[in-house]
């Protein structure tokens, strides 16, 4: 099979010192980028340089170092906004603690202000708990209806009753790419359908943003949340994009320093823009690291990254099918343009935890478990899968090692 990748993986791997480690004579086969992508040297170095030369709190001091820190932090906001195509990059990006907090912000701010006993929202059966639990928590207070798009037998979303579910709904909140199935959902169509029904659309971009370019303006998204540490950035920071018109009307979520214009003993005035949602000292070094990560990814090019992951996915699906037949199943849609590089493996009679344990002895890092998607696990009729997910540093050798380690697993438990 001819390689269709234009990524120089050997050169890329040099930026990731963790991958150079050898354990018991075996190289590390890191197939867990869906949980957290490794940060390249450039990201680690940008954060260290900031900490060593520019560390200060932001939006407070007037000395030169503090001005510089504030500039770097606000520049990161603009960098993120531009990366996802925001119309107003400086005023539509909120930094949170992680992607999960972004959804909690959305629910507790927009949701609390806009939902009530007679409202409805639409989610899907393939959502991560981050896009289910915050809504369930709010539902117990407000009593609105939650409707779910179901997962079809071909492991795509069943859209046959979409118009019916959207009827009277205020929001459709959906993942762009399933973190379990690798299903890439038709976000442009879903956005158009939601708006035609008078609903807003929120998108979980955690698994999508690292693999393909997302343009929130072109897709006309109202909200997008994503996870910087899945885009080769640091942990400790999350992103919520919201159209300026929504953000300006949303009440604060967390209260405290930094999010106010004025405070008196009997009340407060909230700050304008993203700062209204960033109470307390924000993740400054992490924002600097995120900027560096997005620059790194842009330098390689999202189109090339997407093509590389597609190529690896096709190679892996074919290798697993030809080696194991029906013994090893990959839960998810058949290969195709809307199939992301997330391979949820199940083996009859072998639990995902045991698969992952044996794989570890081959240096293969995968994630066993329910992947924070228990409703989807019930729909699939499995209690866990062993998930391999691709990053820019993976190559066919990694897939070959995975297949070799899977063969040993099947042997051991057969």
């Amino acid at each position, binding site marked *: 099979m001819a390689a269709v990748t234009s990524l120089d993986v050997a050169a890329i791997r040099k930026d990731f010192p963790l991958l150079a480690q050898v354990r018991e004579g075996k190289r590390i086969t890191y197939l867990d980028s869906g949980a957290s992508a490794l940060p390249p040297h450039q990201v680690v170095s940008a954060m260290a340089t900031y900490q060593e030369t520019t560390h200060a709190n932001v939006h407070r001091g007037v000395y030169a170092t503090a001005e510089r820190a504030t500039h770097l932090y606000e520049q990161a906001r603009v960098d993120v906004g531009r990366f996802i195509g925001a119309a107003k990059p400086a005023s539509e990006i909120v930094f949170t603690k992680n992607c999960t907090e972004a959804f909690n912000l959305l629910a507790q701010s927009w949701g609390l202000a806009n939902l009530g006993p007679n409202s409805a929202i639409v989610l899907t059966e393939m959502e991560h708990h981050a896009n289910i639990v915050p809504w369930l928590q709010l539902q117990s207070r407000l009593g609105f209806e939650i409707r779910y798009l179901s997962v079809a037998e071909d492991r795509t979303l069943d859209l046959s009753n979409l118009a019916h579910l959207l009827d009277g709904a205020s929001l459709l909140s959906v993942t762009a790419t399933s973190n379990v199935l690798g299903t890439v959902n038709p976000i442009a169509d879903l956005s158009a359908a939601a708006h035609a029904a008078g609903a807003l659309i929120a998108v979980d971009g955690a698994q999508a943003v690292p693999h393909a370019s997302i343009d929130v303006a072109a897709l006309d998204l109202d909200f997008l949340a994503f996870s910087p540490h899945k885009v080769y950035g640091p942990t400790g920071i999350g992103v919520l994009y919201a159209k300026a018109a929504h953000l300006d009307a949303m009440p604060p979520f967390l209260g405290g320093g930094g999010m106010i214009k004025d405070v008196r003993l009997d009340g407060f005035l909230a700050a304008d823009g993203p700062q209204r949602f960033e109470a307390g000292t924000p993740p400054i070094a992490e924002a600097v690291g995120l900027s560096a990560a997005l620059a790194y990814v842009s330098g390689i090019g999202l189109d090339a990254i997407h093509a590389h992951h597609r190529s690896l996915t096709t190679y892996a699906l074919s290798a697993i099918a030809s080696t194991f037949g029906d013994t090893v199943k990959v839960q998810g849609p058949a290969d195709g343009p809307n199939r992301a590089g997330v391979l949820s493996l199940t083996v009859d009679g072998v639990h*995902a*935890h045991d698969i992952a*344990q044996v794989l570890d002895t081959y240096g293969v890092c995968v994630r066993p*478990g329910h992947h924070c998607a228990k409703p989807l*696990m019930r729909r699939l009729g499995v*209690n866990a899968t062993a998930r391999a997910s691709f990053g820019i540093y993976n190559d066919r050798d990694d897939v070959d090692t995975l297949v070799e380690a899977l063969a040993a697993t099947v042997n051991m438990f057969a």
Partner: protein
Amino acid sequence: MADLEELYREIILDHYRNPRNRGELDPPAIRVEGFNPLCGDEIVLSLAVTDGVVTDVKVGGSGCSISTSSGSLMSAAVKGKTVDEVRELLATFKGMLSVGDEGEHDPSVEPTPVNLRSLGELAALQGVAKFPVRIKCATLSWNTLAQGLDEIAAR
């Protein structure tokens, strides 16, 4: 690989493939559910205690080889024992895996010197101690059992 063979001893694979005492008991036996949120393992334990003696145990649910075999070995070990003997066995078992009272593995705690012979077949799970993440799999059935015994005691 040596550690892996320690973990997946033949006796464990046997109890995984052919778990003993599978199923559920009818009331008045009590039914307790246990979850391992880490890996999605679920256990449904049915427990019958008469005059301070565990007269029957059944194990349902689904899990990995370690949690399934541990549940199977546990059910075989406690059947017919008094509640006091079962609690003692539980403490010995957890001691073997360096598990504290809170049920969490504490690497700073040296394994409690235990009489492995008193554990019988349960000693096969000793290799799990080298895999801290898997200890919760091995203790799931035992923690669920302890919960059941507490519920019975509170009646």
